[in-house]
């Protein structure tokens, strides 16, 4: 207490000052000291945290941060915190922490000063003063940034419409001949895979093929064996057709004839009426 409230000047007799600020007596209690509790909530929202509140308390009483009057500030701060604890508990944590820091600084100030301690570094308020200064600098910087002319509020982009003839220029991708050849290679390779896939999926049933072949044939005329095969069906399709024909032969539904070895094979429906094997 002695450290901060005893002025350098000789004491003044009457009236008894409440405090001395930078050597000047502060006779009247600052008006800001008392804040009605119902107004506190509103004021609290105006503070950006304990440092901001501390700064407010210091500045309102025209104290100098460097001569931080820790005892008064702590006392006032505690009053705020007490009311805050009742109103806004969740907000109080950071404020409580500051209260603890203030209490710590205060208690250290009350300890007898060690004679060998260096003046500057020994001041327990140093860290708090540093933080207050740092925060105040940022607070002011934020105000300055807010004051800069900015887009949307003070400045508006001035633009003109491009003339109707202005049209985007598109740079077309480049393609090499080699790329084209590879793409063709890829497409053909895929086609092979695809053909295979399709046949696997849609099982060409031999029965179904048998009925289709029967449908294509009649009992009067022979047709070329080869015309039954559709090459575009792929190899598997050809095989299914072939299997169907073998099945038809086995079931004696068709006749196959070949005039001589290696010549064309002909096929027709077995003529049931003239079929000696029937019945």
């Amino acid at each position: 207490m002695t450290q901060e409230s005893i002025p350098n000047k000789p004491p003044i007799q009457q009236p008894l000052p409440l405090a001395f600020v930078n050597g000047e007596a502060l006779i009247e209690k600052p008006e800001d000291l008392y804040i009605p509790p119902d107004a506190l909530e509103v004021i609290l929202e105006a503070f950006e945290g304990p440092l901001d509140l501390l700064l407010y308390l210091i500045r309102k009483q025209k104290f100098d941060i460097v001569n931080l009057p820790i005892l008064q500030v702590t006392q006032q701060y505690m009053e705020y915190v007490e009311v805050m604890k009742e109103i806004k508990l969740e907000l109080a944590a950071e404020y409580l922490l500051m209260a603890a820091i203030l209490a710590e600084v205060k208690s250290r100030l009350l300890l007898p000063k060690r004679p060998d301690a260096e003046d500057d570094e020994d001041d327990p308020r140093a860290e708090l003063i540093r933080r207050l200064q740092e925060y105040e600098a940022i607070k002011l910087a934020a105000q300055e940034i807010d004051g800069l002319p900015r887009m949307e509020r003070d400045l508006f982009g001035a633009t003109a419409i491009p003339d109707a003839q202005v049209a985007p220029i598109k740079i077309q991708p480049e393609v090499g001949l080699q790329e084209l050849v590879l793409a063709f290679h890829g497409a053909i390779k895929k086609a092979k895979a695809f053909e295979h896939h399709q046949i696997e999926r849609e099982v060409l049933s031999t029965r179904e093929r048998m009925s289709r072949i029967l449908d294509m044939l009649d009992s009067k005329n022979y047709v070329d064996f080869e015309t039954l095969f559709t090459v575009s069906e792929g190899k598997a399709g050809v095989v299914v057709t072939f299997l169907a024909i073998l099945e038809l032969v086995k079931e004696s539904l068709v006749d196959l004839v070949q005039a001589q070895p290696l010549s064309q094979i002909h096929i027709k429906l077995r003529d049931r009426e003239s079929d000696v094997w029937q019945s």
Partner: protein
Amino acid sequence: MAKLTDAQLKQLVEAAIFVADEPLSKDKLQLTVLEGLKVSNKRLEAALAELVLDYAPRGIQLVEVSTGFRFQSVDSLSPWLSKLWQEQAPRYSRALLETLSLIAYRQPITRGEIEDVRGVSVSSHIIKTLTEREWVKVVGHKEVPGRPALYATTKAFLDYFGLKNLAELPAMQSIEVLPEQEQEQADELRLQKVADQINSDTMSSESASTIADSEANKEQLH
């Protein structure tokens, strides 16, 4: 700015037209930026007329369109200004390159035929891109139901790839997959063999079908 000077009026009107998102009519100017400033329409018109003259020698001009006044670039600058919106088109997809290659090697070809080979549908976007690039064009219609368009490559296509004619397209012989024609020949050869076996006296119909089965199985392995 209770009483606007002519210079101030001109500044304000000029700035308003420049910053507005759309053309500004005299009415709109009166209702917004000039609200409460008691500027007669005559004064406003004079300011606008002066601004038109001020900008006459510049790169942009003040023009009146149906909905009001706006600044726009001088038309003679358009070829250069267009370069501001230069954009790199994305690289061509595999699907596009395959479609192009099929048109190049198998022309004239229908979209359906391309789809048959590729096994997936060809998007209209691809055909549009190729047509817009003037590499591909419709050369006729196939005489089948629906009369689908037949696509072929253009002279611009040959020029781009530095080819004198289509015969200069790289031959596909090195490619292991047999071109369609060769494949047909191979199929015929195999059929012939099967036919031979059917005729063979030593074979029962049953064993023939066994061979055919194994043949079918083998196909599935491919």
